[in-house]
């Protein structure tokens, strides 16, 4: 009973944000268009990388981690799915992986860190 009532609120508050976001899974390469506020100006920054994990799926606290190599340094960035700062999210490439959390990517670089494409 109480779970149902919470679902009503969560669905209602997340509807707009979820419609913008295509379905993606760990291993996929995505491009996140993220709004950044500088003073009172707003600009959009793109961040492209591999989805390492999706946490708390289905709740309002859902977030995903995107890993990329930026000028030789590995960067992992966590985005809340429902954040109003996510302007757009593009699915670039679907990846074939066998687990939900791709922590093994942390120990690999270059050729070893490739992920097969899911066709």
């Amino acid at each position, binding site marked *: 009973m109480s779970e149902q009532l*919470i679902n009503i609120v969560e669905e209602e508050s997340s509807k707009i944000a979820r419609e913008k976001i295509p379905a993606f899974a760990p291993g996929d390469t995505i491009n996140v268009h993220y709004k950044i506020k500088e003073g009172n100006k707003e600009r959009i920054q793109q961040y492209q990388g591999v989805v390492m994990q999706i946490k708390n799926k289905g709740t309002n606290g859902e977030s995903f981690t995107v890993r990329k190599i930026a000028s030789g340094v590995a960067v992992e960035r966590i985005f809340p799915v429902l*954040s109003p700062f996510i302007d757009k999210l593009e699915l670039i490439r679907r990846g074939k992986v066998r687990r939900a959390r791709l922590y093994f990517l942390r120990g690999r670089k270059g050729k070893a860190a490739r992920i097969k494409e899911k066709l």
Partner: protein
Amino acid sequence: MPGIIGKKVGMTSIFNADGKSIACTLIEAGPCVVTQVKNTETDGYRAVQLAYDDRKEKNTPKALKGHFSKSNSTPKKKVVEFRDFRAEFDHKVVLGNEIRVEDIFAENDFLDAIGISKGKGFQGVVKRHGFGGVGQSTHGQHNRGRAPGSVGASSFPSRVFKGLRMAGRMGSDRVKVVNLKVMKIYPDKNLILVSGSVPGAKNSYIILEK
């Protein structure tokens, strides 16, 4: 203070316009029935008695049935008196009238929530009163890390002061949390979403005051 009675549903989080995730509590509030209106002439003070949550007729004492029948209401589980409902609600506080959550509160209002906190059982002084504990495992310490220390000293005062903080039952207290912001109201479902946490377990009664 005008207010309403509700039940805690649970917690969730929503994003505000600044992109911040706000922890929120969902409360099923009302509809409440006005079961008694007290005024200065007959009772010596102004107050409104509200009742919430239906109760089985067969489990209701006859005395209470009589009280609820005065306001043509079905028997209710929770009855709360609110002193000094503000004059602006006078047209709503009529005996037997239904008071809904949107009558009292609007979005972005601030409210106080009163509930009975979760019972913690018999707890020591570290959890119950925030004592520091010892925090050292050396310098002669032996299994006294969470002990309260001295309570009565020696020849003076040679007794334990009244009210000294000691171990004991913790929780199950009436707790009021002030200035919670109303994030959203769902009038058709009698739900109200407030920022922050509210004392008590799920399904426990919460009194919301403006």
